């Protein structure tokens, strides 16, 4: 599967990120091999979301090194973005636009064909709801739309922030299906690490911005 020369999917060395005077991530180091799934655990404010946002190239590291597939961030951020699928706390969709219109926007941003939109709607179980404004969907369905959005461009690295929150049983089954079918690496922040049994390859606990 992974030859010894292949770069790790994710590598952090002493990653530090501040918000003003407060240190959100303090010299965090981790490695995720290709195809592996890492769970991030820890209380609120531990830095899980910040870490995912740095990996999603939304935040720049203030110190230390971050590399995705061997590409250093932030220098090579543009090269890396097509390969990343990020699902944040919020589903990242416009409430007044329909589900389909939201996906059309992201399809254009990722340079993906429109037929893919129907595929991910199907994947997320939103087939009948494509024409509904995203703001009118329930929390769980909006969460599924967020996941669909992240899968549009068939990313190799998945970055998921609390993906199970708000999902009903059907939603959770679909999430499991997506993760099973996904052969790339994943970094998943969660308060329910036990639900990921069988899917996880490793765990990292964060506390106060440090790897515990």
């Amino acid at each position, binding site marked *: 599967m992974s030859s010894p020369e292949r770069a790790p999917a994710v590598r952090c060395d002493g990653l530090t990120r*501040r918000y003003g*005077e407060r240190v959100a991530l303090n010299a965090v180091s981790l490695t995720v091999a290709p195809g592996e799934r890492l769970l991030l655990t820890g209380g609120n404010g531990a830095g899980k979301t910040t870490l995912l946002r740095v990996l999603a190239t939304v935040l720049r590291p*203030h110190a230390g090194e971050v590399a995705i597939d061997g590409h250093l961030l932030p220098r090579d951020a543009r090269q890396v973005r097509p390969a990343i699928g990020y699902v944040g706390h919020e589903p990242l969709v416009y409430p007044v636009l329909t589900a389909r219109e939201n996906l059309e926007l992201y399809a254009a941003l990722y340079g993906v064909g429109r037929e893919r939109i129907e595929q991910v709607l199907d994947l997320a179980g939103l087939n009948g709801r494509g024409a509904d404004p995203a703001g009118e969907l329930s929390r769980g369905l909006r969460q599924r739309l967020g996941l669909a959005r992240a899968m549009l461009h068939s990313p190799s690295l998945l970055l998921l922030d609390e993906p199970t929150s708000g999902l009903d049983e059907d939603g959770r089954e679909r999430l499991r299906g997506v993760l099973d079918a996904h052969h790339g690496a994943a970094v998943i922040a969660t308060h329910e690490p036990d639900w990921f049994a069988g899917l996880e390859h490793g765990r990292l606990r964060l506390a106060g911005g440090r790897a515990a």
Partner: protein
Amino acid sequence: MNGSHRARPDRATAAATAAALLMALALAMIFFYVPTDVSEGYSQRIFYFHVPIALTTYFLFTWGALNGARFLLKRDMSLDLKSYVPMHLGVIFGSLTLVTGSIWANIAWGTWWFWGDTQLTTFLIIFLFNCAYFMLRFSVEPGERRATFSAVYAVLGVGLIPLSVIGVHVAQTNDLIHPITFNENGVNMDGSMFLTFLVALAAMITLAVTMYLIELRGKRIDDRLRAIRRLAGGEA
């Protein structure tokens, strides 16, 4: 580290010495050497303060913008300081420009030099820009984000200077083709007047550089103190 510390005081001292010498020379020339202007009388001499101070202000803004652009490219926080300090000095020199300008406007009325309305309006626009720069800096918490926003705004300001000069001139006169200033002054000015002007300009710029070096050093010490206090207090 110690070697570079020894170098910096020397630069500030050298600049201060040069500024003092040039300023003394300029003052001597302004009050004793240059002939009295025929049309405006003795008090026309304020021109030798006003124009060099104004030009120095423009020079400071351009310098601030330049370092701002360098910050955006290199993300080196010391460049943020090196961009902020010239902008800050720009407030000081800018205020002096407006003060000397209005004094002069009171005295002079035959504008042989063409430094009338349009120049003051242009300068006012730039001065407002400078004030807005500081409002921006006060509205954002210190850090890389504030440095980035300040740098972007400083760079925008550099675009504003030519637009302001051209725009106000276009709007207030009918003459688009010949910008007022220096070519004509250089031709019309008597040799000794031009020389005095150049010395005064050199003095003002050197003074600005001296103040820049001193303020830069002071701010660096502030930053280091803050960092030491933070370490001593333990990081959050």
